[in-house]
């Protein structure tokens, strides 16, 4: 069993943050497996809540992640056109014990989004499940649990966290 080091996990997470901040969304998508999921639970849900039973903000399967990227690259995705400026900060990266073919990695994040003269801050914990594919690591699941009482004052999570 090949394990991932913290440095390797950080490289992957930092690369993801950089691709998102540069709006290189097609490349971002390539970091994920073809059966991946991207989840943002509602802020009043307990940790580990199930998107099939409770209401999230975002519960994308891979096909919807693809469509999210397609949509965000259109001028008709009005919330993000003109594009907002974002900065994803990733910290406190910890690698957990492998479970089957997946390795859990957790991180703390702060993402800033600026547009129309206001800056909104998304704070939370990102829970990743990484999978060894070919010679490298890809993301099978990213779950962003926000440390907020609600999406206030933001009103939207139209960027990818």
């Amino acid at each position, binding site marked *: 069993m090949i394990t991932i080091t913290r440095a390797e996990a950080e490289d992957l997470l930092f690369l993801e943050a950089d691709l998102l901040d540069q709006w290189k969304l097609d490349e971002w998508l390539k970091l994920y497996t073809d059966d991946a999921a991207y989840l*943002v*639970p*509602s*802020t*009043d*849900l307990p940790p580990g*809540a199930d*998107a*099939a*039973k*409770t*209401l*999230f*903000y*975002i*519960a994308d*399967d891979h*096909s*919807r992640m693809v*469509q*999210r990227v*397609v*949509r965000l690259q*259109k001028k*008709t*995705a*009005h*919330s*993000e056109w003109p594009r907002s400026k974002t900065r994803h900060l990733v910290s406190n990266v910890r690698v957990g014990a492998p479970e089957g073919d997946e390795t859990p990695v957790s991180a703390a994040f702060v993402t800033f989004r600026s547009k*129309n*003269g*206001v800056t909104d801050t998304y704070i939370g914990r990102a829970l990743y499940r990484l999978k060894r594919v070919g010679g490298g690591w890809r993301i099978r699941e990213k779950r962003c649990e926000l440390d907020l*009482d*609600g*999406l*206030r*004052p*933001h*009103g*939207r*999570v*139209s960027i990818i966290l």
Partner: protein
Amino acid sequence: MSDTGTVVRGPRTSMVRSDDARGIFQVARRAFVDGGVMEHEYDAVFDRCWLYLGHESELAKPGDFVTRTVARRNLLFTRDAQGKLHALFNTCPHRGAVVCREAKGNSKVFQCFYHGWVFGCDGKLKGQPGEERYTAGHKDSGVGNLVPVPKFDSYAGFCFVNFDADAAPLPEYLAGAKEILDLIASQGEAGMTIVEGGQQYAIRANWKLLAENSVDGYHALTAHASYLDYLKNMVGGLVPIALSGRSYDLGNGHAVLEYKAPWGRPIAQWVPMFGEEGKAEMETIRSRLAQRLGEEKATRVAAYNHNLLIFPNLVINDVMALTVRTFYPVAPGQMMVNGWALAPKEETDWQRKFRLFNFLEFLGPGGFATPDDVEALESCQIGFANLGAAGWSDISKGMGHPEPSYDDELQMRVFWKRWDQLVNGEAR
């Protein structure tokens, strides 16, 4: 941004003008930016109208409670041991502290952490530390009980409060909206339930822009072009049903759009994206609806979308999923929004999963459509900075036509006429 609107004093002039002969209906943009208007709205609208508190399913068991902010009040909504619902002001009658500081839970009693007064789920004072230092009749006098809201009632599972003790009864207030609430409640054979997880967000725009937007059939093709593209991109995201239907004035400022649409509905319009398993599920739901309600009503429940606005600020949108939404101004240019998913209680795991998957494709701050509504509303609010020169919004679409289409603006005129009556003091 016009967060701090200028207070305009002096004789009140109508902010709504309707010229039926020319087919022009306009609203003064001052209504969206003026701090004085907002304060007057709290007096004349929010303190007089029936306001949504929650759904009875949120308090399924005795002792269940939720705390909620309704029109700037902190409320505690409980179900007591006998199963009776109570809406109480969440402030200690002793010295004012918030008694219940949790968002939701189950409890036999509530204890204020400041001096330790204990209340039952019905709000009655059960104990005071140092009781012997109070006069004998103090506890039973009622001065120590949690204060109930002046009026509380429910209809079809939807619970409302009214801060005006002299308000007309809820059924009278709801007028024609009762029929639509019954229709929505009849989706569930065993009743309806709020799904766990609330979407709480804010919009930097005036609350009335969301009232308009929630029943706006006109903006779909432009504001939501990318959502419609998404449905086209998905294999089997759409069925060949044209967007068509009409709006209805339900009385007292309430209105509804009733229309057919090409998207999948978990109750119960199948689209190929739901798969073969989904087809069987949808057919089962559809035939059970027909057995229970008759074919005509079953079609109205299953095949028609409803965007319902209950004046002033309850929206129940029965579209690609079912959402309940309410919102309040905290400033002329900022509102707090709470949104929930409502669903038939008896849904299978598959149905619930697909309902939520369908919900999130469009609805909520992370969906493929709502963020663009937020952008549009905030854009309007920014545009209102020009109100000195461009002072009026136009809401004329469909005037002069005998049957209002779902994408006309009759429903907004219904809202605004009622708003104008209340704000100008012409009606209670």
